[in-house]
């Protein structure tokens, strides 16, 4: 049952990304490229998505329960730190290079192109490598600090 509702949610989400134009990297880049022939249409996608999702979040936030009555814990992390900003910057640079973010990346695999496969394989590698990178930076941080002093 849980899998069925998740499947339906995925269908809506994927159908929405397809309809919005976000599965064409050129459309996304035209939205991000404010210096060129700027195409602001995707601002409507974000606004529309939030307009529908927000009432659901407010509902669950108030009762802390799903419609099935099961308890929900929404993320309530409030820390705005260097990790959040660094990660988001790295993601933004990657997104700005290709116009592909994770959702559309997975969807364009359906086209079976080499480019889509290369993007998703590299993204998967990055996801799997990130804990390892975190360990490496923690290990290198004292070295860098020592070198500075």
């Amino acid at each position, binding site marked *: 049952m849980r899998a*069925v509702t998740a499947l339906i*949610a995925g269908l809506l989400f994927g159908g929405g990304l397809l309809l919005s134009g976000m599965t064409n990297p050129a459309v996304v880049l035209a939205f991000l490229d404010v210096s060129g022939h700027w195409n602001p249409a995707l601002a*409507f996608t974000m*606004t*529309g998505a939030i307009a529908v999702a927000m009432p659901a979040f407010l509902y669950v936030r108030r009762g802390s329960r*799903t419609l099935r009555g099961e308890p929900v814990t929404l993320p309530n992390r409030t*820390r705005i730190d260097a990790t959040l900003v660094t990660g988001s910057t*790295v993601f933004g640079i990657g997104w700005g290079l290709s116009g592909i973010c994770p959702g559309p990346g997975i969807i364009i695999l359906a086209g079976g192109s080499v480019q889509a496969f290369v993007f998703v394989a590299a993204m998967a590698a*990055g996801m*799997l490598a990130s804990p390892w990178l975190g360990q490496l930076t923690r290990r290198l941080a004292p070295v860098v600090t020592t070198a500075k002093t």
Partner: protein
Amino acid sequence: MAMASNWLYALAGGLLIGGGAALLLLLNGKLAGISGIAADVLRGSDGGGAWRIAFLLGLVTPALIFGLRDVEFAGGPGWLATSGLLVGLGTQIGSGCTSGHGVCGLSNLSARSLVATLTFMTAAVLTIFVVRQGLPA
């Protein structure tokens, strides 16, 4: 005309995306953060995660049924591999992407997600600017 219909498709798509996120939250109690879901599937982190695979399957299905329209890539395999690697690393370090922070986080009125969204939007805008116009002299 084409312009007006683009805006309509963009809006209609957004409403569907929001509907998917709302449904997953209201019925499953889960956030539709795609980078997080994908990473959890890759790591095989928990046993009760069949919903994640079902969600991702649902995500690709419309494209399999209706077909992808244009998919115009910005570069060759090397360019896309670089982009993909940064997207994979960045979304894990920053705990979210366009869906997790941009759609779910903002809907949840999270200041953390607002900062993340403004950061990745700005970084993406500056990146495509530099790629197309070069660094300002």
